[in-house]
């Protein structure tokens, strides 16, 4: 199929349709509005149901219901809207239901602004809602990847019966790029025999619930969820190693920032400095093992984010004290320029020489 030009938000919607999503519940917020708008216009033509809920809380609970009935379902929002959804997300994780949540991140805290940010790293990877659960978090760096990972997200959600998040900063939602829609990769999925599809008088009713008052039973559920998460950590980690043969300096960056870092690496090369990049594609599970593959030539790691350094802790866990970890970030919707990062890189290398 020929490549077409799409905006990130539209492309994610189109990918969801292609992946067999049948329900979309959402509530408007910039900079992700093109996604529900696209679904409102296109979803019905493909047998999907789009519904604009009265709030983010309502939308995520509609997702809870549809997922409980075994349907492929998605919601999308942006940072403060995702904050509102946290109770529902925790319930969905507690009831072990599959769904896909898209967060097109804007600057925070609070209502913040509408320009791109990466300051929902903690919110996405450290829970957000209550209890011991995790979301699988995909962080695409370009629109082809956004499309491919959105399709994959539905498979992974169904495979593990766990909510999955596609996390793009505002730029990923708003920018345009050429895209090709390939057939989604399919996994061997277990049948959804737990779904509330009606007993037809032939079996006991299935119950979707996250309330377990008996402590022993709740502990059992927790252990089951943890076992599942361990499998995800073993099997679903994704990352890219870029120019990592003999780097003097290793960057760690994801999403839009990783693209800027790639330009930074070119600029540094022209000044005789060889730098590489570890780009996490899954933020959870985090690619800790990538840091074990860093060659001896590396003297330091520089984490670059559009946040105040929320990923730095994971980078430090990954490198286990073997190299100094520095940080450069812009926030509030400001985007770092390659030259700013070059300056910080040189400052850091000067300090460790």
């Amino acid at each position, binding site marked *: 199929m020929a490549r077409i*030009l799409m905006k990130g938000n539209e492309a994610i919607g189109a990918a969801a349709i292609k992946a067999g999503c049948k329900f979309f519940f959402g509530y408007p917020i910039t900079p992700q509005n093109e996604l529900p708008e696209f679904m409102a216009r296109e979803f019905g033509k493909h047998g999907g149901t789009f519904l604009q809920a009265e709030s983010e809380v309502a939308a995520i609970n509609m997702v809870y219901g549809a997922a409980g009935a075994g349907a492929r379902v998605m919601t999308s929002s942006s940072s403060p809207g995702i904050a509102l959804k946290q109770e529902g997300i925790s319930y969905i994780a507690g009831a072990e239901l599959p769904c896909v949540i898209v967060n097109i991140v804007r600057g925070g805290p609070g209502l913040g*602004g509408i320009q791109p940010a990466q300051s929902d790293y903690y919110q996405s990877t450290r829970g957000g809602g209550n209890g011991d659960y995790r979301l699988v978090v995909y962080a695409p760096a370009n629109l082809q990847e956004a499309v491919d990972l959105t399709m994959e997200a539905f498979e992974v959600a169904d495979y593990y019966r766990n909510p999955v998040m596609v996390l793009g900063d505002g730029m990923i939602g708003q920018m345009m790029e050429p895209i090709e829609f390939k057939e989604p990769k399919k996994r061997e999925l277990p049948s959804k025999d737990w779904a509330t599809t009606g007993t037809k008088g032939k079996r006991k009713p299935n119950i979707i619930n996250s309330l377990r008052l008996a402590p022993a039973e709740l502990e059992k559920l927790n252990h089951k969820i943890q076992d599942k998460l361990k499998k995800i950590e073993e099997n679903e980690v994704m990352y890219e190693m870029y120019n990592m043969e003999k780097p003097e300096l290793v960057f760690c960056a994801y999403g839009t920032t990783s*693209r*800027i870092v790639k*330009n930074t690496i070119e600029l540094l090369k022209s000044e005789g400095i060889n730098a590489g990049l570890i780009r996490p594609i899954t933020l959870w599970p985090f690619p800790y093992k990538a840091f074990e593959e860093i060659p001896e030539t590396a003297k330091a790691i520089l984490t670059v984010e559009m946040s105040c350094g929320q990923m730095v802790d994971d980078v430090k866990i990954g490198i286990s004290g073997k190299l100094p970890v520095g940080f450069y970030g812009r926030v509030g919707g400001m985007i770092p320029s390659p030259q700013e990062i070059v300056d910080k890189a040189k400052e850091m290398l000067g300090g460790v020489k």
Partner: protein
Amino acid sequence: MLNDNRIRIIIGHYGSGKTEFAVNYAMKLADKAKKVALADLDVVNPYFRSREKQDILGEKGIEVIGSSLGMKSGADLPAVSSRVLAPIQDASYDLVLDVGGDAVGARALARYYSSFKDGNYDMFCVINANRPGTQTAEGAIEHIKGIEAASRIRITGIINNTHLLRETTVDDVLRGQELAIEVSENLSIPIKYVSALEKVARQLPRDMEGQIFPINMYMREDWM
């Protein structure tokens, strides 16, 4: 080139490249006209708006009319500055109006429709044959009709801006030109410009309908 009527209204399907064309047009126009204004009428897009390029446009002496709050980016209200009316009425201005996408964006134009008379304005529809929705003549015409109905203004020219960003080839532009010709013949509206990145524009056949309009990517950073 650029010898169009005093008010140039740039409209089209959202994502067709209207803003990039409008910014390029204004930059070129500033070389030959004394008093150029670019008004950002986009009430649809939160990102990639012409007002973000205020600095480079300002250096060329172009008056940029964007947010009445003076914000270059980040404004989340679909508001249009009252200042837009000045260069529409003041005939000493050469004006480029960068309008939001689709009929939804074009609705902002309707407020000024009584100011647009035959001979004082041109309304150019930017078409990208690589955008879903305007890949066929039927789709492109549907968009044009919707925009004309919402804005109450007739389109006077077509711009073939078919591209895939930096990966655009001559073939893309030529395929877009076939679409533009079909639309042009169907609606009896001429193709005014064929816009493409300079490196592509250089390789285009000289006998195309419409003037070849080489553009720079002002709206896209190097890392994009």
